[in-house]
């Protein structure tokens, strides 16, 4: 987004007359100011929304992050459009997600850790090295077996579920960054004076012109 533009609009809004007392010639009556405002409590259900903060510690170990990073970059590598998943901090997001103090996330942490351990064991079994030290073609040999659960062999069904979870998370982590949004050519989050609807080339593409 164009943050400067956004701030300008917000600044213009702030310059508008605030709601003054009905008769502003008199000294302001405390009653009209409403109750005291102390802001967010800073609890999980009442966090500061303007300045967000992750409030739980991360649980993955350094070695786990090395394997995870290799897997994230196998799923989203750099190409001519955008950098790799790890270059924009995706493993850190997945660590944050798997460490979150919510039931679903707690369960997923087990699946994630088990999956990373399986990935290294499988890499050692096939190539004698952990996943992070495999060549790209070697990584692909494993990934091809686990990239789609409906078509995976029975012994790979579990790892395929793990792979799918990481793919979903990697996509969220990647495409929510500036680099990911740019890759998709997302346009928005900018204040507009008016909304013109889709441009002519879109209408033409849809047969609506």
């Amino acid at each position, binding site marked *: 987004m164009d943050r400067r533009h956004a701030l300008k609009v917000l600044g213009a809004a702030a310059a508008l007359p605030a709601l003054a007392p009905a008769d502003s010639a008199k000294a302001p009556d405390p009653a009209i100011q409403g109750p005291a405002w102390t802001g967010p409590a800073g609890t999980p259900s009442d966090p500061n929304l303007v300045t967000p903060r992750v409030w739980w510690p991360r649980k993955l170990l350094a070695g786990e992050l090395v394997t995870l990073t290799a897997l994230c970059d*196998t799923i989203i590598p750099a190409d001519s459009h955008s950098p790799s998943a790890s270059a924009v901090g995706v493993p850190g997001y997945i660590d944050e997600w798997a460490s979150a103090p919510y039931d679903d996330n707690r369960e997923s942490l087990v699946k994630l850790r088990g999956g990373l351990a399986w990935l290294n064991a499988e890499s050692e079994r096939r190539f004698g090295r952990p996943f992070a030290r495999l060549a790209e073609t070697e990584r692909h040999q494993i990934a091809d077996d686990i990239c789609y659960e409906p078509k995976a062999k029975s012994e790979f069904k579990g790892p395929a579920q793990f792979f799918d979870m990481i793919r979903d998370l990697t996509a969220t982590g990647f495409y929510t960054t500036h680099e990911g949004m740019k890759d998709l050519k997302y346009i928005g989050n900018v204040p507009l004076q008016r909304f013109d609807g889709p441009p002519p080339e879109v209408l033409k593409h849809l*047969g*609506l012109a």
Partner: protein
Amino acid sequence: MTNTQTKRVQYDAVVVGSGAGGGMAAFQLAVNGLKVLLLEAGRNYDPLRETPMFQLPKDAPLRSEGTVDKPFGFYDATVDGGWRVPGEPYTVAEGSDFMWWRARMLGGRTNHWGRISPRMGPYDFKPRSRDGLGLDWPLTYDELESYYDKTEALIGVYAHDQSLENTPVSRHGTQLPPPKPRAFELLTKKYAAPLGIPVIPAPIAVLTRMQDADHWPAKLFPGNPLAQRVVRQSMRSRLACIYATGCGRGCSLRANFQSTTVLLPPALATGNLTIVPNAMVREVTVDQRGRATGVSYVDKASRTDRHVRARIVVLAASACETARIMLNSKSALFPNGIANTNGLVGKGLMDTVGAGIGGQIPMLENLPPHNNEGTTRLHMYVPWWQYQEQLAGKLDFARGYHVEFGGGRDMPDAGIFWGLEDYTNGAYGKRFKEEARRYYGSFVYFDGRGEMIPNDDSYCDLDPTVVDQWGIPVLRFHWKWSKHETNQASHMVKTFAQLIESMGGKVVGKLETDGTKVIAKGGQIIHEVGTVRMGDDARTSVLNAHCQAWDVKNLFVSDGAPFVSNADKNPTISILALAWRTTDHILAEMKRGNI
């Protein structure tokens, strides 16, 4: 400095709850010169300082994915609310399934709501007369029409300008022009037309231009210079929509309707309103004659009980919380709760029927990049269109639904591309990135929102043993859908599947058409109404046609509790219009010396 001390010994009115119904009641009474105390169970909340305008998902915990603490995502305006409020449980009877949403904050749910503001139509007020089911309202569309007009002019609603069957719009130009449709909306309109499904501009409480502050105040409040002055100021302080940053976060520009940006500031500006937050109401107190004397509440910060006296009491704590307060207001005169002589408080609980599916539309793939955000709310929707088929007995359910739909190249957020493996044979690597570019923006979703008919198995009462952390007995919910609702849900998904296929698309996932499986849980659509219903007869209703308790003439209800039916029309605009009408009655009765 604050006005949190209730210095006045007696107020003219105490209003419980600060959302749509409470905000409107407090505003109307204050601009008409009454000294009003507004009690809110949650904390003070200031959208001007607290709204996360333009913040990105990447800067929020979990990329703003929903959690039990923040169910609609981190940036959703709701704080201290959701399906679970710590320290304030509710229970669900065996065999029932119900979810109760609460928003413990100044302005309540109006801070985050969908802003969808369709008027109820003439049929909706007289459903029993039409099909023999449920009950009729003690008023007609014609009687509420002017209040819809005034409410729209006051809060700002964009809408279509032509009425369809039972889908009325203002005849007096009170609505604002709708924004231009987005690509997916135009495409849907084109392919819905041959199926006989109308796609028209949606009624949404968002300003597409600044309000006419020179015109409306005098028109809305003739002969009331105080009201005109504060409303003029309020209208001038509101900006038009800037077509960016999600409406559900609230709006620091006051471009959409929130009680906290549209009703409470002008009400405070009168000098007649005192707001006390963190005030959890325990009960309405009565004297020996059976008149309400005020309310007692728990000051949450000090955990102490307080009592405030008032000439009248207006309950607007949300349909279920209002029922809870009434059931808990036990006295010698009202052993089953205040104004509950006939035992109907808590009965008649309704929510909205909800079911929806998504579709992937190849035509929307690889669209030229463009801004799809608009107001971030509906620009178009589908009003219920099968009144004649229903009348002819061609449908296996009694009432209608409208369709809310979305899609297109929105801001990427948590969950983007979940499920993409099914379209790409499990793509990863550089191919995944190519597929992502192709499929981005090609998904649409359709959600039906339909009418539920009240039934004897859906109600709330007090749990016999459980209390919340304030020692107040909690609600217990009982719930059952009838065939009318589950058949309607089935009709929804079948219709949407047909529409998706006619657009050349495919339904996302396996299509399930069993209505009992696709219908949302009770309470999940967050349109609970009907627990303290109004009526023409004191034996079959709790409130009279002016939302005044039959048994306690200085007790009023101004939230969704008085609803007699729950048309597919989202309830907020009707709550607001009805609350305005109720305050007119209160003022007239006070003038006549009756209360």
